[in-house]
């Protein structure tokens, strides 16, 4: 468990950096599911915490 909490520390960089490569939807679950239904695509979720 401790390992995973530590692993989460790798997530603190800005969202803007990630957006350069992948089109992230930030903190909008309803929007992501609506997109997935419309495009018939699976949703990849990264659940993280800023610590």
């Amino acid at each position: 468990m401790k390992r995973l909490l530590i692993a989460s520390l790798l997530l603190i960089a800005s969202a803007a950096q990630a957006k350069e490569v992948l089109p992230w939807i930030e903190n909008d679950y309803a929007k992501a599911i609506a997109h997935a239904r419309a495009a018939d695509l699976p949703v990849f979720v990264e659940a993280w915490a800023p610590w």
Partner: protein
Amino acid sequence: MRAYVFTDKSLERYAGQFVWLSIDTENATNAAFLKAHPISVWPTLLILDPKDKVIFRYAGGGTVPQIRKLLDDGERAAHGSHAKADTTLIRADALAAQGKQAEAAKAFDEAIAEAPKNWPRLGRASESLVFALLQSRDPQRCAERALALYPRVRGTGSAVNVASTGLSCATDLDAKSWNRSELVAGLEKATSETLAAAGRIAMSADDRSSLYESLVDARAQAKDDASAHKLREEWAAFLEKEAAKAKTPDQRAVYDSHRLEVYLGLKQPEKAIAMLEQSERDLPKDYNPPARLISAYRAAGRYDDALAASDRALKLSYGPRKIGIYRNRAAVYLAKGDKASARKTIEEAIAYAESLPTEQRSEPMIASMKKQLDTM
């Protein structure tokens, strides 16, 4: 992962294959997501089908090649034809995502038993099994399965989690466990072997750090202070080297938490203080540096500085993490001998914890703070 992994150009080819959703579990606006998909391990990677059903779950992060493999696995789970073991693995992932860890562990074991020769998902299934057993509070079986599966994942990225999580489970075992010493010895050997092979196995710096952490814990538990100290020194040197390679303050600060732990273990709080003061200057909106400084100043006996750091951290923080900052602040008051202020701080923490949305509210945490109040 956001600092180092999801920025990698090689992931661009997956952009159109998924809808990409980033969920900050501390953010109260994500209550609806957390109600549907409770998260208890950070980070957790999920793949949902368009009907919002979990078809893939992985607890943990990874290197770019590991993430590419996970995305390929996820794609296959979404679209591909499945062998029996794959179908069972999808069911196991869904159970784990619902928080049914004991049932998930059973299903992961079934998937492993059904696995065809050279099944490419064996590593991920083994890691998930060990985590599910850890989370279902079954350290005995967690350690036993980790030790049994380790030879099958030896030399791969999955060896990191199987060995180090298994070792953590083994060291958590009650002294009454009949084979505790055998499990600890076997998994300590597996963890050391994986760490020694770090140059040949695809593993992140974070993975390597977690191997050191498990080994230090095992040596400290065995009261082998000399070996624990030597390992901590190696661990600190490794982290310092990695931090020196960082190109941005964000990337460097990724190592702050690991380094804080190891410096406090080495009784060198002054090193942690210098590092965290630098991070606070570089990242003034981030609550982590002042939150971590509370422990570093406290360890150095600088209680007033610790309290000032807690003020700054509380101003910047949000979500459940704020509770930990209150508790750390209370510990500083206690160290100072100011019981009344410690009590008041815990009362504030309880009020804050009770104000969180249901999905972020932890009843065991509230109960533990109320119990703490009774002892003050």
